[in-house]
């Protein structure tokens, strides 16, 4: 009777089954390539034309759209520090200021950015240029920088405080943080900052005068109780607005000779700070602030009202910029970028 011994190949098959049941190697899921994420924080926006806009924010992020916010491109900034403020003087030439004294410059419409030597490591919260050569940037410790050669060299300077101070005032007002700057020409400009400071120069920064004293009265009797101003905007030599703490908007219609707090028509008062106000040539405008607050003045000289964006905004809003009465942008925390093309009737969020 024949007897076979198929042990060899059977053993192989058995081993194959055992080893076959063994598995390893994690499958590699692709990473999210979101251009805008919830961890993003956007500080400023500039509309270049009806379809193009630049947004800057935390972590060295620069975003650019060329189709009205439908799609975004992340532009290499070369830094991971926060970028606070963006300014373009024409379609191609722009600057960005940021944390650690970062100043970036582009001359190709934002495609490439090069770092300029600012000579400081302070936070530069605001930047403003009047032409290709002359610009100013402001930051903490009362410091501002200016350039006359398009940023190839920057010079540091300090804004002087009020001349006569009590001892307490001197202590508190020492080196207030400067948050925003705007120049109309080489001589005339304003800087706003902590403790309600509104500095004004008419000689290109050689001397500065304080303009905030006219805000006293109206419930505030001490200069130290004036709200910090985070943003300032002038549309001409006469008309300017500044947005600040406790939902305050200060306005001047005479070049800063007199500042007055604007009136609001609200069911619940705005108690959170407003960070940025933007006015149109007719002096109506928009303002944005913490806790999703958006205020709007739709009729000249009428009280400001809370504006609805058609959605609940649960984060701070830091930047607002309108190209014209219809086309506008608002940016803020949690990666929020909102765009309107109908004068603020409807706002569309960008989701990257």
């Amino acid at each position, binding site marked *: 009777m024949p007897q076979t011994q198929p*042990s060899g190949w059977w053993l192989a098959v058995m081993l194959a089954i055992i080893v076959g049941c063994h598995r390893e190697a994690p499958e590699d*899921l692709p990473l999210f390539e979101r251009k805008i994420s919830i961890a993003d924080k956007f500080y400023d926006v500039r509309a270049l034309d009806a379809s193009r806009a630049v947004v800057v924010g935390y972590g060295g992020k620069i975003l650019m759209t060329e189709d009205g916010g439908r799609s975004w491109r992340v532009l290499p900034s070369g830094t991971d520090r926060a970028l606070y403020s963006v300014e373009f003087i024409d379609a191609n030439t722009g600057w960005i200021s940021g944390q650690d004294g970062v100043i970036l410059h582009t001359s190709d419409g934002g495609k490439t950015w090069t770092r300029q030597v600012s000579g400081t490591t302070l*936070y530069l919260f605001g930047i403003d240029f009047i032409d290709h050569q002359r610009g100013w940037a402001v930051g903490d410790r009362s410091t501002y920088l200016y350039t006359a050669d398009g940023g190839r060299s920057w010079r540091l300077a300090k804004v002087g405080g009020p001349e006569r101070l009590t001892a307490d005032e001197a202590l508190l007002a020492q080196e207030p943080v400067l948050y925003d700057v705007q120049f109309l020409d080489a001589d005339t400009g304003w800087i706003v900052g902590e403790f309600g400071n509104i500095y004004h120069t008419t000689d290109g920064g050689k001397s500065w005068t304080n303009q905030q004293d006219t805000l006293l009265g109206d419930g505030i009797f001490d200069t130290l109780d004036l709200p910090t101003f985070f943003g300032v905007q002038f549309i001409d030599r006469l008309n300017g607005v500044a947005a600040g703490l406790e939902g305050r908007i200060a306005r001047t219609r005479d070049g800063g000779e007199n500042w007055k707090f604007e009136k609001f028509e609200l069911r619940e008062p705005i108690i*959170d700070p407003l960070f940025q106000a933007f006015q149109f040539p007719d002096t109506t405008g928009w303002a944005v602030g913490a806790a999703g607050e958006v205020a709007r003045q739709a009729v000249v000289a009428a009280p400001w009202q809370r504006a609805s964006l058609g959605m609940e905004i649960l984060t701070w809003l830091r930047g607002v910029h309108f190209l014209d009465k219809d086309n506008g942008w608002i940016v803020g925390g*949690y990666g929020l970028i909102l765009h309107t093309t109908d004068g603020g009737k409807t706002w569309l969020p960008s989701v990257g």
Partner: protein
Amino acid sequence: MDPLKRLGELLIAYRLPVVVIIGVVTLFFGYHMLQLRLVTSFGELLPQSHPYIKIHNRFSGTFGGANNVMIMLEVKEGSIFTRETLNKIWRMTEGLDKVYGVNHNQIDSIAHRTVRYLKVAAGGTMRAQPVMLEPLKTEEEAATIRRIVHNAENIYGLLVSLDDKAALIRANFIEGRLDYRRIFQEINANVVDPFRDDNTEVYVAGEPRLYGWVYDYSSEIKYIFMATTVLLWVLLYLYFHDWRGALRPTISGVFAAVWGLGFINLIGMALDPLALVIPFFITARAVSHSVQMHDRYYETYGRTGNKHEAIVDAFAELFVPTLSGILTDAFGVLVVLLVPIIMLQKLAISASFWIMTIIVSELLLNPIVYHYLEPPKVHVIKAREAGVFKRVIDAAVAALLSRTGRIATFAVAVLAVVGSAYFWQSLVIGDPTSASPILHPDAPYNVSHKRIQEKFGGVEPLIVVAEGYDRDAMKEPRMLRRMEEFQRALERDPSVGYSFSLADIIRAVNMVFHELEPKWGVIPNSWVDVGGLFFIYFSGSPPTETAKYVDASYTTAHVTFFCKDHKGENIRRIIHRTKQFIFGAQLQDLGLTVAEKGGQVAITAVAATPNWERAGPSWLESARDTGERPFKVGDVITRLGKFPITDLESLQAALSKETANKTVVTFGVLRNGQAVEETVAVPWKAAFKLAGGLIGVLAAANEELLRNDLLMNLLGFGTIYFVLIFTYRSFAAGIYMIFPLLVANGVVNAYMGARNIGININTLPIVTVGVGFGIDYALYIVSRTIEEYRHLGDWEPAVHRALTTSGKAVTFTAGSMIAGTLFWTFSRIRFDSEMGLLLALWMAISFIGSMTLLPVSMLTFRPRFIVLEAQRISRLEAARARQLERWRKRA
């Protein structure tokens, strides 16, 4: 006389002492069985020697452990910021704080004292104070809370959902005090039930809750046991045509169970509700052996009509297959000892002891029980011989052993293996589903888990510890930025919801400190500023509260990633990415770009200005003095400390091990063919260490399982093979008998892959118990074939006879066991029902394999060991007969 028959005789002769001894031991184990508790010890589920677990054990007390309970209150209409709802959250938080075992300093809720926000008081002074100090009195206060939450990045989105509709209360439980049942009941009574109403739903998730549900459901297991027992009795009665046939297996099963359960308590172990399927299977083995014995006893008694002879004959003939069946099962389970998880090791010891006790109940006690039992009626036995079952078996065996039947058998086996191989690739280590696979997808726990997941994006923490080399390391802005970068990098993985680190606190504090200006929401440039902000934030809190973020000396903190699920593959990927990030960051800090080529790691670029410090990395003095960089392009890294470097993976592992506690490391470098040593001070202030939290500990467990999975499979089958070599004195015997098991193993693995059942600490013991499953079927059939071959001297009738006798009993046992197992599928614990189904499948396949593939291959290949074994036994019998003859003559 045959020694086995002699043993049978002796047992009957000395039945009284044997019964007394077994009775005393049974009483002893019975006492211990009554002390047995249903408890899961979390620590014992973890592989304590794994580095992740060591980190987990060191930091779980402060940074948060793996035993988190998440409670989410959700309102249907409106927001949570009403006086009524916020007060509910307040009372729920207070209720949770009173639950047994909760770590009072690790509760996160907007209504808990440890969750603070920065308040700027009149005069510009600041202090961090609890969001809710006391229950609210007015709606205005609720509006204030809303404002506070919306401005606090460390609360909004983490403890309050971004749509204001849900609030999360998170608590960590102390590992040594985990009483799942009590936690479950107390949470229901204090935190859940009183707060549900038309507009408010409360969801609870987290491991302690999950186990709470399992305990809650496990009470139904006794009904499953009862139903199974009743079914088995009915089937056994139908099979044996009398009640003794039902009683005998029950005696075996109960004795083994008392001994086994008593032993479990004796070694200080408790019963895990998820492991309850295992006792069921062991009992099934006991019953299975009993049925064989009983069948044989009836068969012999029917032939001889002599009770004593029938007892001894059945005992002697079945002793070998029964014993080796028990031993293979017992040793097969013992293989689980290899996994360094205490729970599994204890389970391995107790399960294999339990299986061994079948020797006592089945072999030692058996002849005695038969001795006391009335013999069956001969007409009953005759009736069985002519029963339907017997006729069906006869017909099926004839068909199987025909030529067509044999070819078909091989064809089906090949198809089964090939078909299964397709599904093997989808089998995973760890959990394959997002919620808990232990319960059904629509179970309240999984519904809660899913809902919390949807609202908060991730609930299962992975804690990576950043352990500084010196105090104040966590005040270093670069360290904080690195942690932030780490967060952003891992958040890009689809399985990571969000993350949290000290960097989030510092940014939020910096912003509040500067009048809520978001532009200040950054990590300051200098450690003095960072230190100042920490001081402001933490100064009002006791160290026990701040310890969950950073230790008192600011040496060590953590980055916690909240993951969306704990699927095995996701855990593996996240851990892989975590290591990759740390490695990349270290290389970047060292200013090195490396590449792997031809088994070497070469430096391809050295940064001109290393990223870490603009002034250049702080190399050791000697290097700095000479102005020379320690590395040059083209250098080949051969060694790091005591670790040889051959590829990027080894460099990564070595870098992480070498710099875990040391700041100075020595690189062995091959430069222009010369071996050079470069000693470098690492430029980072803290080492990232993996890993705590549920994801960390599961990663460790999965890694251990993966490491041992193949080895265990091989050893499991190896053990069986080894026992078979001794049983049949043949190397080939094992191959014939294991082959059907392997096919079953393959099919079951395929089933697990197809049904998304992963190999994890819960399923592994059951799968391992199953490896040896069905070997006893093969043993009985092969032993009977040898016996019949000896009598009949021809292959075909021998195999035929084996299948219609032993095979019949095998068919019955398998059938009734499968039927009994199916009751498990009704369990509300999905794990039990799937394991029930899985093991039913396993038994079915190994039964089919042993009943078809095994006999067909024996018939086809006619293995020599059967013939040799038959001849050996004949020789032995002849020798014994001669000896007997000599004794008789002498007498």
